[in-house]
């Protein structure tokens, strides 16, 4: 029983990682007042970039860099549309998602001729799992040793980066000048402007950080969790991350727990597929798949606290004419 739990939790960590990175990405963007429903597309683009470059160069790090590059380009398109051009941010996000699906499929086929996949990564093209010190030795120790060696140890570097990004984000947001300004611009851009701060540049920086984190999330999918890019491999994870962001009420600590919860649901669903739960019977896997969305809707309905987005989110900033 305990071992099953460890296994489920272990896969929870793996499944939560891309959600967490994308969720934090969305957090930076939306805290600055730029709504982003294009997380999915940026992740997908990054996964493709990472998979392609990882395959060609045989270097996971170059792959990661490429993934981040792709996500940042898409983020800049979103920024240009919604910050500079003051376009509709939802529409822009939808466009980014389409572009990512289409371009990854099209270029994947053109370059690799494998129906949109990238070929399996060569050695060094993939981030390998890292065994923490003493993991082997401690694996015999009951409970604590198992937790250490099975649950905490043996993940790839991006997993650790994702979880390290949580306190880092908290620190940036609440303990730095940049964070103060970021939070302010998402609430009242006019206040930021009159304080002599460049609203446009501030928002662009937020959008770029969003791109970097989406890049990590996407690269995780194609060159850490799997060994190569598969067509449409994000499969809605960007939207679950968005749901988690709302669920977390736009706070970094909450974001981690929301992503772990949604990852856990996913892990349980995989585990329980086709199995009977005593007293309940077989729970359809689709129920678990839908649960994150259902929970978020319930939250939005105001039944579990109230999710209040940053006040200026979604509204382009325009100096008012007197």
């Amino acid at each position, binding site marked *: 029983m305990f071992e099953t739990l460890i296994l489920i939790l272990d896969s929870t960590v793996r499944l939560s990682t891309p959600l967490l990175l994308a969720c934090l990405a969305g957090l930076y963007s939306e805290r600055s007042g730029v709504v982003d429903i294009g997380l999915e597309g940026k992740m997908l683009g990054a996964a493709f970039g990472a998979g392609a470059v990882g395959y060609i160069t045989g270097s996971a790090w170059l792959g990661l860099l490429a993934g981040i590059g792709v996500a940042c380009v898409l983020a800049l398109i979103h920024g240009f549309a919604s910050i500079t051009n003051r376009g509709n941010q939802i529409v822009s996000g939808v466009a980014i998602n389409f572009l990512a699906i289409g371009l990854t499929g099209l270029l994947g086929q053109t370059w690799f001729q494998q129906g949109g996949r990238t070929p399996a990564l060569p050695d060094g093209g993939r981030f390998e799992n890292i065994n923490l010190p003493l993991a082997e030795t401690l694996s015999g120790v009951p409970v604590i040793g198992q937790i250490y060696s099975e649950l905490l140890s043996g993940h790839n570097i991006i997993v650790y980066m994702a979880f390290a990004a949580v306190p880092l984000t908290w620190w940036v947001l*609440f*303990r*730095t*000048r*940049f*964070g*103060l*300004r970021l*939070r*302010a611009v998402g*609430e*009242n851009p*006019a*206040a*930021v*402007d*009159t*304080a*002599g*701060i*460049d609203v446009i540049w501030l928002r662009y920086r937020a959008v770029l950080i969003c791109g970097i984190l989406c890049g990590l999330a996407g690269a995780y999918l194609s060159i850490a969790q799997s060994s190569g890019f598969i067509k449409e491999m994000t499969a809605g994870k960007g939207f679950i991350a968005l749901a988690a962001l709302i669920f977390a009420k736009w706070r970094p600590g909450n974001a981690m727990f929301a992503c772990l919860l949604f990852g856990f649901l996913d892990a349980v669903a995989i585990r329980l597929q086709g199995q009977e739960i005593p007293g309940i019977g077989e729970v359809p896997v689709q129920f678990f798949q839908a649960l994150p969305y259902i929970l978020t809707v319930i939250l939005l309905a105001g039944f579990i606290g109230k999710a209040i987005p940053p*006040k200026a989110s979604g509204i382009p900033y325009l*100096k008012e*004419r*007197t």
Partner: protein
Amino acid sequence: MNKPITTQELETTAQPAIELRKINKRFGPVHANKDIDLLVKKGSIHGIIGENGAGKSTLMSILYGFYTADEGDILVDGKKVAIPDSKTAISLGIGMVHQHFMLVDNFSVLENVVLGAEGGANLSVGLASARAELKRLEDEYELKVDPDALIEELPVGLQQRVEILKALFRGAEILILDEPTGVLTPAEADHLFKILEVLKNQGKTVLLITHKLREIMAITDTVSVMRRGEMVATRQTSETSMSELAELMVGRSVLLNVDKTPATPTNKVLEISNLNVTDSRGVRVVKDVSFNVRAGEIVGIAGVSGNGQSELLETIAGIRHADTGTLWIDGEEIDLAKNPLDPAQMRQRSLGHVPEDRHRMGLVTKFAEYENSILGYHNDPIYSRGLLLDIAKIKELASGEIEKYDIRPPNPLLKTANFSGGNQQKIVLAREIERDPTVLLVGQPTRGVDIGAIEFIHKRIVELRDAGKGILLVSVELDEIRSLADRILVMFDGKIVGERTADADEGELGLLMAGVEGETK
């Protein structure tokens, strides 16, 4: 041209804190600032007065780097400067308190004060030193406020104080205040004036933008008058009078004489009893209000903006909910708390409503004129044929109104946003008056409206009265109330604090509006 300044002059006259030369600013076809010259003496309180839309705010926004002037020079402390953004303005020692506060509601006072002047990337260090500096400023300028309070929990007066602290924290030597008393209670306004005196005594320069003559007379040393984008005069406050300033502001003698005969009121058409209203912040804004309006009279509600008049009008119109209160319209009793009627139902009871803010409420500016001519009355069967709206008929009726109210350009198909302020107001007025309402609510009928249209609008309102209708007029312009109303109710802090006849003394009304009860001065 740059006049050469002799050394003697330099010694005798203090260097001006600000000098503007031939400032011009256009927004598309609108010439908001025309060849503006201005000299502001250091260590003085300099008022700039003008009607809404005279270009005061635009000018100050140019000075604060929010807009850049199309032409002209700005001199700060005698040096010619360019102010491309607010950052530059701040570095030149210019601070601004905006009409709508530039504060982040869910931030603390301290966070708001340091925003943009954090003093380093690490926030903790900056916040700690800012806390000490804030304490010093509090003591020096008597500006008490809890640094850890959230803005959204502070009353408006204190929020404004935070804005002043923000400017001082950035080392402002010149402080611009844009219509600072618009949102303040008289007591808060008095307190603000005391603060401004302290600032002046400490050597700061204050620029006070307002359209209220009383404030100019009370606090400023010098006053400049703007009218329609131009700077028309500058006077020493001690050497001018309210009437002179008023004349300069509007370009002619100001007490708008409305041609009207004494009212002959008959039966009550609107009666309000024991009305209490709470706003969305949970603050009670209308308190125990009772009054009536009779057919054939204009009842004016005077008061400083934000004393519950807006909420009173909206509650009567059915837009807002009341905590308690009963309303009788044309004899029918309506319990405003238990069985309130919505705006459509109130209209069916022949209540017209010209709202205070035509852009926000009275019009859908995206619509063509003819569509706005039925807004709120679109369910009237005369506009429908079967299931569908009778567009041809609506246009025809709209054309009639356009002719009758001299709305220009006379085109019912034109988008409403493309009409001038005065013509937009006429569209609203025509719509509401032409339904021949038993009771008409009118809020700020001439705000942002040109002189010609003001006269026209006043005439129409009086005509409606003479046709035996009851009119409830709310205006923050005391002159308007005095020239239109047959009876004047004064509202202060949500209560009706007095009733006067139309020929009441202006000073007495002013005292009532300021919440000072009692005898005439």
